[in-house]
Structures are given as structure tokens and as C-alpha cells.
């Protein structure tokens, strides 16, 4: 299938990275869609956890918030938020965490806190929430963000959650044993940190996208790996599954709007 939107490609590319053995800490938006597409296609036994405390959820529609009733109704069990962060996240039980943000730098550090100085911000963003500890305690991190000059910046005004810090072995030097961001999945391409420098590097370009588009939409001089492939286009099943769950979600949210 070549009739898909860039966001659909991003979501489906993310879903492919997940397997039955994954225990995922899911965020709202693209990660939630990606995880549930994986669950409904190639990874039926994947475990999805939302930070509201719901473990092993199988939502029929995507939640608007991290704590929608649907998540609890379909969960294997639900724990308190302190337990979620202590036993499950800090306990090292999560294989894959998803993050996103307003801004990212070349070492996959993220900012969701402020634009401008912290004490006198130009734009006050929502803040980090679970991100600082998701970034350090999950086995690996996937980041989903649309590629844009505003989002992919040379220097972050604030590091909300650390990716590869200043690059190289910075994580190890700070005592972290987890991998950190291993994939950044955008609407145009997929990036991976370079094995040594940890600088994000294009490894896969989505169908129909040019290198020029990627360069133009990145705030730093973006590097390409020596071998760059084309991201396989969404299969019919992937696309149908994503569109179905999005349609069910729209319908459910509309119903709740009418009932309100």
C-alpha cells in the first residue's frame, strides 16, 4: 500500500519494532496507537502498561488520557501510581519505553518543559511527567516525533529527560545500565544513534521522501548512515488495523462528547 499519511507511516514503523516479549510503558498519542497496532497484528501477547497503573491493558479504543477507564477495564490488574513507579518502572521490569517531546537534540535528549529561560519562560510546556525516569529505567527507549526544524533543534533550552547526553559513553559514565533511545521514528525517516558517537543518524527513509526533505526539516546538519534503506511501506493489514482503531476511537470520543 502506498496510500498512507506520514503519521500513519510513523505509527506503523514504530509498531514493527515491538514483539510479544515486550513490556511497554506507553504514552498517549502515536505510541499508544503503535503499541496497539502491534498488539492487534504481529504481537498479540505484548504487555502494555500505562503510567496510571494499568498493567496488561487491551484497549478497544485508544485512550485520550493516560488514565481513561477503558485502560483499567481491559487491564490484567491495576496498581497505585507509587507502586507503578517503584516496583515496575524503577524495578527494571519495563523493556521498552516510549517518549516524545516538543524538542529533541542530536543526542536524543528531550525538552517538554519550557521554551526560553526556566524562570521567565516564553512558552511554559506541561513538563516532564514520567519522562526523566522512563528515560533512565526502561531497557530501551523509542521516540516518536514529527521531523521539523522547530522540534529537532541544535541546542535544547532545557533537558527534561536525558537521551545520550553529550554523546559517547555519557550514560555509562552516569551509572546507567539501560540502552536509552535506540530508535527515533519520525514521519519522514527513522534515526538511530551512531554506535560510537551516539549522534542520531538516518538509517531508513520512508517511501516517497527525499534526503533533501529530511535535511530541510532538521535543525542541525543531520547525518545519514553509510547504508540507508527505504522503510517498507505499510501492509494492508497494518494500515487497516490502524485505521480501524482510529475510527473506533473517533466514534467513542464523539459519543462521549454527545453524552456530555
Amino acid at each position, binding site marked *: 500500500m502506498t496510500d498512507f499519511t506520514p503519521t500513519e507511516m510513523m505509527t506503523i514503523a514504530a509498531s514493527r519494532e515491538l514483539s510479544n516479549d515486550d513490556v511497554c510503558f506507553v504514552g498517549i498519542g502515536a505510541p499508544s496507537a503503535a503499541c496497539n497496532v502491534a498488539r492487534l497484528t504481529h504481537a498479540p501477547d505484548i504487555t502494555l502498561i500505562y503510567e496510571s497503573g494499568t498493567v496488561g491493558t487491551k484497549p478497544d479504543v485508544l485512550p485520550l488520557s493516560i488514565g481513561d477507564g477503558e485502560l483499567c477495564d481491559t487491564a490484567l490488574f491495576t496498581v497505585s501510581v507509587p507502586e507503578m*513507579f517503584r516496583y515496575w518502572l524503577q524495578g527494571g521490569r519495563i523493556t521498552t519505553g516510549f517518549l516524545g517531546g516538543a524538542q529533541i537534540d542530536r543526542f536524543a535528549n528531550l525538552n517538554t518543559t519550557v521554551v526560553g529561560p526556566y524562570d521567565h519562560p516564553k512558552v511554559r510546556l506541561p513538563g516532564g511527567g514520567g519522562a526523566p*525516569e522512563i528515560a533512565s529505567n526502561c531497557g530501551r527507549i523509542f521516540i516518536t516525533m514529527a521531523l521539523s526544524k522547530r522540534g529537532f533543534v541544535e541546542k535544547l533550552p532545557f533537558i527534561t529527560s536525558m537521551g545520550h547526553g553529550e554523546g559517547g559513553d555519557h550514560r555509562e559514565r552516569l551509572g546507567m545500565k539501560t540502552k536509552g533511545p535506540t530508535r527515533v521514528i519520525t514521519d519522514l525517516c527513522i534515526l538511530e544513534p551512531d554506535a560510537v558517537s551516539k549522534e542520531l543518524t538516518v538509517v531508513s527513509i520512508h517511501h516517497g521522501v527525499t534526503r533533501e526533505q529530511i535535511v530541510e526539516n532538521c535543525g542541525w546538519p543531520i547525518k545519514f548512515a553509510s547504508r540507508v534503506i527505504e522503510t517498507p511501506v505499510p501492509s494492508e493489514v497494518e494500515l487497516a488495523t490502524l485505521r480501524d482503531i482510529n475510527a473506533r476511537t473517533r466514534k467513542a470520543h464523539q459519543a462521549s462528547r454527545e453524552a456530555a
Partner: protein
Amino acid sequence: MAKIVPLAEAIGDNVRDGDTVAMEGFTHLIPYAAGHEVIRQGRKDLFLVRMTPDILYDQLIGVGAARGMKFSWGGNPGVGSLHRFRDAVENQWPRPLEIEEHSHAAMANAYEAGAANLPFAMLRGYIGADLPKVNPNIKSVTCPFTSEVLAAVPAIRPDVTIIHAQRADRKGNVLLEGIVGVQKEAVLAAKRSIVTVEEIVDELAPPSPNSVVLPSWAVTAVSHVPGGAFPSYAHGYYPRSNAFYIGWDEIARDRDSFTAWIKENVLDAGPEDFARHAGKTPAKAA
């Protein structure tokens, strides 16, 4: 033993100007009716605490009831910004707002430490993040056995915690179910506590011996406010109004439309107005 009293009395007796107040609820069971009563009674200079200040705290900040806020994520979930919160931080309207910002893990641990009567909480946290540079309440502690350095934050000990729950019995014992968030910890960490409930029943009848219960002697006041969590939800009673959350973006973006909304829906309203939301659309899991 908890006193079972009308909401106006519970707030009047237990929430004072200048108090540190936690109105908790992680998407679920957010105590909207109680928060509106705080606004109606004109409380001021409150220091608000909450992991996920959402619309309710946007409202408290927008009317100028708060001098400060301790939080870990201040947004409208799945929708975007809290415009009143942003207006306070970016433009000091209607008054400046002192902020103390943490991560979720730190806040959750800090409530837990408060409930456990510890002076601080420790966590494997904030590694490589900038918050410790701007928040002097993030320090460190060294393990006396391994010499590992961990992050440390002060325990949260609110003057008063306010939560919403499914039901209480006539003695004031309270049952919470579903996404229970940090509510139990927030109540046990506080000097005083108020719980609004959907129902008051003869027998609490928890479904499991290990259900989440707050005994009457650990709660200060219980008030019967059906629908009191709307537009948040009460598992087993009514669903979240995602539509309200989406609609709030428009209302709160503008100071005048916000102020008009508050006058009509808070100042000129009462706790009984929440009852129309109770059970209107039965929750799936009822």
C-alpha cells in the same frame, strides 16, 4: 472517626487560607465538586500540590486562589496546554505563581514517604535531567552499603488532602477502586482529609479483602456528592467526559470566557449540580 457532613461544611472546617492542599486523582476520581467549593468559599494563598494538575487546578489558578504549585505534569491530557496555568507562569495573571516542579516518580515517592512518616523519599531518578538545577528541593543521598548516589526529595505532607471515591459506609470507611493513583498515600500523608463519594451505603462490601480502603479513623470528613468527579470519572458509575476536556481548551484560552464560565458553573452553582452527571451514561465496568 470521619464526620459525614455536607460538602460546604467539610471545606469550611478543613481548608484554610494559606494551606498546602493536595486534590489528587490520576485522570480518574478527580474531586471537581470539592475544588469548586473551595473556589466558591473564596479560599486564597493556597499552595497546591498535585502530580497531574489538570483542568481543576487550571480553574483554581485562574481565579487566583493559588500562591504556588508543586507538580510533575501540567497539561490537559491528550489535548494540550493548561491556558490559565500558562498565563500565570508566563504573564503572572491573575497573580504570580511560585512553582516547584518534579518528575512523576519523585512526586509519587514523595507522597509515599509522607504516608510512611519519613522526612524524604529516595529514587533512582533525575539522572542527566535539568530539573535538579532549577529545583533546590532535589538533593541526593548516598547508600551506606554500596555508596551509590540516589536522588532525594522531601516528603509531601499536605495540610489537607481532598479526594473523590466510589463509596463510603455510614461509619465513614471509604472504598476506592480502579485507577487509584496516589490518593491513599495523599490522604495518609495529610494532617486533614476530605473525601467526596458517589454513594453512602450500609455495607461497604469491598469485592476483595485486599481492596483499597481508607478506614474512617484515617479520614477527617466524608461528603456525599454524586457526580462529584465530573468531567473526570468514577469507575463503575460514569465515564470520563473526554468531550469536556477537549472543550475546555477553548473556554480557558481566553481570560473573559474563562471568567464567565467560572461565574456560571462554579460561583453561581453548587455541589448538587454535579448530580446530573452521576450515572447518566453508565460506565462499562459497572
